[in-house]
């Protein structure tokens, strides 16, 4: 179905090709997962499938890419629209029509499909993806998971034979991600669609994949079964990490597969995991008293009482729209409380301006790039030093500690997601705020970057910073946090030690907790501490 024949892709005057003489064949009806660390060329590979690379992005392509026999060299993306459906990383930004129904029909209209066929296919797709209730909704009113499914449906109505998905679940909460993946699974199994999907969150998707395309990062490409690739890559979901440490064979990819070989491990492990050295907790850094926030008729937060102490890492979890971002906004003074109070070390954050604010609280928003506006990394660091009144070189030193050496002359935009997050963190940490707020920090981070982020957060907590992170990533929450607060519909529904809170919830439990239940182990690190013999 998809054929790459000696394909090399080079962008601009870059000396190294992103893909170097790659040949691969993806047969029809396969769900093929593209894995690899950030910057290894996943998006380039996906773009090459329907000719967006190079027709849209520029760059030089040698060799041939053929989809169902059509060469992308001769066919621009629009001439392949009836064969390949592409859904990008941010589907909500690519909607063209008003309502869900019109959006679904838009592709067919462009392809001049006969009206009666259009009508039938829209109905089919509405049922297939569970969108029937949303048909008259405006596309701007959809939640993340709904928008992702509508975007998939919109390309599906053209009856393509290949579906290309770029990070379809990275922005979604666990339940919405499940909805999307279940829909994709059904397309592969019932319709025989060929799916090519890139995703960082392997723990969510790897069990659905038939084959993996692994981009190690040196321009080569390997196609093999998930088990064999997972044995070798550095980016592995927690289950695989544990299985590889414990030497389980065959390698389990799902919780169910891992439960059987884990029986022996469960018997061996102590009932309580050996505690990690947690940072000693200090005094309260931030407190919210009966905090209520309303947006018009909508109550985003309802009488929240919460305090965060120095040295504490708090994970804020909950569905999209549960009030996580609003709570962070209230804690840093961006959102005005409708009732109740917020205090940062005794001060109302809404009274703080400029340098006073940065000395009390540091915030890394969902898009860390929002914080940055310098032309180079070095300039950004210098600005941060100047604006916070720190000794020159402070920001650069923080950045080095967080991200290792970073080319100082690069434009912040050209950094990888992980590096950009580190730069934003460095800029914020230059002012040494006692409270650090992070909104969805793991978007677009691969496993190694996530591990570095967790280490960094732990160190910051040990130095006495309080950290609050809002996240959908249950693995990150389990790894990093000592306390978890679960929000639902503006209320705090659970607040306590992470170990207790997440093991009780099937939605927020990390993979290791599910494998080792009922033992309260959350992460591979927990297991390795308690069973040191597993450490290679």
């Amino acid at each position, binding site marked *: 179905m998809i054929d790459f024949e000696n394909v090399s892709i080079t962008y601009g005057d870059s000396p190294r090709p992103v893909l170097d003489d790659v040949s691969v064949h993806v047969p029809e009806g396969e769900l093929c997962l593209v894995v690899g660390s950030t910057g290894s060329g996943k998006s380039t590979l996906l773009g090459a499938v329907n000719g967006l690379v190079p027709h*849209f992005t520029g760059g030089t392509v040698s060799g041939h890419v053929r989809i169902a026999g059509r060469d992308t060299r001769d066919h621009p*993306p*629009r*001439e392949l*629209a*009836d064969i*390949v*459906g*592409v859904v*990008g990383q941010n589907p909500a*930004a*690519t909607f*063209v*029509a*008003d309502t869900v*129904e*019109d959006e679904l029909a838009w*592709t067919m*209209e*462009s*392809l*001049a*499909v*006969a*009206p009666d066929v*259009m*009508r039938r296919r829209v109905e089919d797709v509405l049922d297939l993806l569970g969108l029937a209730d949303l048909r008259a*909704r*405006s596309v*701007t*009113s959809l939640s993340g998971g709904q928008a992702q499914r509508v975007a998939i449906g*919109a*390309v599906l109505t*053209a009856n393509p034979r290949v579906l290309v998905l770029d990070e379809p679940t990275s922005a979604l909460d666990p339940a919405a991600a499940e909805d999307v993946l279940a829909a994709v699974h059904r397309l592969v199994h019932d319709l025989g669609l060929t799916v090519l999907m890139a995703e960082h969150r392997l723990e969510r998707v790897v069990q659905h994949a038939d084959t993996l395309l692994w981009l190690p990062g040196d321009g080569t490409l390997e196609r093999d079964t998930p088990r064999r690739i997972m044995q070798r890559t550095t980016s592995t979901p927690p289950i695989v990490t544990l299985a590889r440490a414990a030497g389980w064979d065959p390698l389990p990819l799902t919780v169910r597969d891992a439960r059987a070989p884990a029986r022996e491990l469960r018997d061996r492990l102590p009932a309580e995991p050996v505690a990690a050295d947690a940072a000693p907790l200090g005094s309260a850094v931030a407190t919210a008293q009966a905090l209520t926030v309303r*947006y018009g008729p*909508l109550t*985003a937060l309802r009488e929240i009482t919460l305090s965060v102490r120095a040295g504490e890492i708090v994970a804020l979890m909950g569905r999209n729209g549960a009030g996580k*971002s*609003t709570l962070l*906004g209230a804690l840093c003074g*961006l959102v005005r409380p409708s009732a109740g109070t917020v205090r940062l070390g005794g001060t109302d954050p809404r009274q703080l*301006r*400029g*340098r*006073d604010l*940065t000395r009390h609280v540091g*915030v890394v*928003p*969902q*898009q860390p790039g929002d*914080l*940055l*506006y310098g032309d180079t990394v070095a300039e950004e660091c210098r600005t941060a030093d100047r*604006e*916070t009144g720190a000794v020159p070189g402070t920001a650069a030193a923080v950045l080095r500690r967080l991200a290792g050496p970073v080319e100082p002359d690069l434009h912040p*935009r050209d950094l990888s997601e992980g590096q950009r997050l580190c730069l934003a963190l460095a800029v*914020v940490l230059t*002012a040494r705020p006692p409270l650090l707020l992070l*909104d969805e920090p793991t978007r677009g981070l691969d496993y190694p970057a996530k591990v570095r982020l967790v280490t960094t957060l732990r160190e910051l907590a040990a130095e006495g910073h309080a950290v609050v992170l*809002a996240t959908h990533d249950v693995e990150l929450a389990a790894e990093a946090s000592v306390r978890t607060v679960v929000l639902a519909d503006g209320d705090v529904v659970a607040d306590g030690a992470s170990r207790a809170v997440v093991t009780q919830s099937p939605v927020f439990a990390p993979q290791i907790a599910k494998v080792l239940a009922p033992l309260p182990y959350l992460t591979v690190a927990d297991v390795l501490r308690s069973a040191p013999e597993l450490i290679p």
Partner: protein
Amino acid sequence: MRATPRLLHPAAWWLWALALAYSSMRTNDPLLLLTIAAVAAVVVGARRGRAPWARAYGLLLRLALLTVVVTVLLQVVLGARYPGHTLFTLPAVPLPSWLGGLSLGGPITGEAVLNAFVSGLRLAVLITCFGAANALAHPARLTRILPAALYEVGVAVVVAMTFVPQLAESLVRVRSAQRLRGRAISGLRGIRGVAVPVLEEALERAIALAASMDSRGYGRRAHLPSTTRRLSGAGVLIGLGAAVVGTYQVISASGGNRIAVMLLCGGTGLAAVAGFVAGRRVRRTRYRPDPWRGPEWLVVCCGGVVALTYVLTVHDELTLGVPYAWPTLRLVPFLATLIGALPAVATPDVPSATPRVAKPALA
């Protein structure tokens, strides 16, 4: 018997609103103007769609109100003094003569306030008519009835329009982020700090959207010689331009003349022919085209009756200020305007849909 709920053809609503707007431009009678605004409001209340765009009506209504208030205030504070019945006297501030006759304060006459009110009101009614059309049928839905030759331009315009709210959203986000960095968000540096990320994001979004549209088949076309393509494209634009100029000449205060009519007819003809030629290269079909049935005719006829009545019975001298007197009711145009409200009850209801839930987001 109740008709099945459905959305009416967008063109019907726009024609109806256009007729009301035209009627409002023919009069400076505050009573008739208020009636037109009220009629539009009733129809909007009863038949607006339930999508978020329809909520813009409230916003436009506020803008209309503001127009009236600002016009009156400007007249009171700065306007040329209008002799007549003095309502009250503001302390006069003598301005140097080189300010060209502007005067601050002085006696404020009822004539001045009334005339400012009426001219503000005419503008406000025009705004509410536009708001009504927008609330009843989003302009995006109009692209579905555009001739094939204009379809691509129409989509481009509509997509560009959706960028405005997105731009505003990212503006708010970036400003918050800048504030969190403890940075001034005013001044030249502040503007740069906000503008650079916002524009970068808009550009990225535009590229992503273009890529998505292209990979969904937008712009597929049958082959047509490039000369024909260019000629027909130019023909459409020139023809439409001529038609617009002609229309303006025909309806403007200066009165119609032969050249204007010729411009209008010739331009329309040219655009139609060129559009037909250009349309041959676009291959596309329409999903569930809006039907044009009885209710659509009714809506257009109601608008037509209003406009026709105004053409026949209202001959206001718009260039002349309104006399300072109690407005007198002109029964015929007043009753005709009320006919314009008929679509509020005589058309099928709009289909229900779940109302939009606002979604707050941090930074």
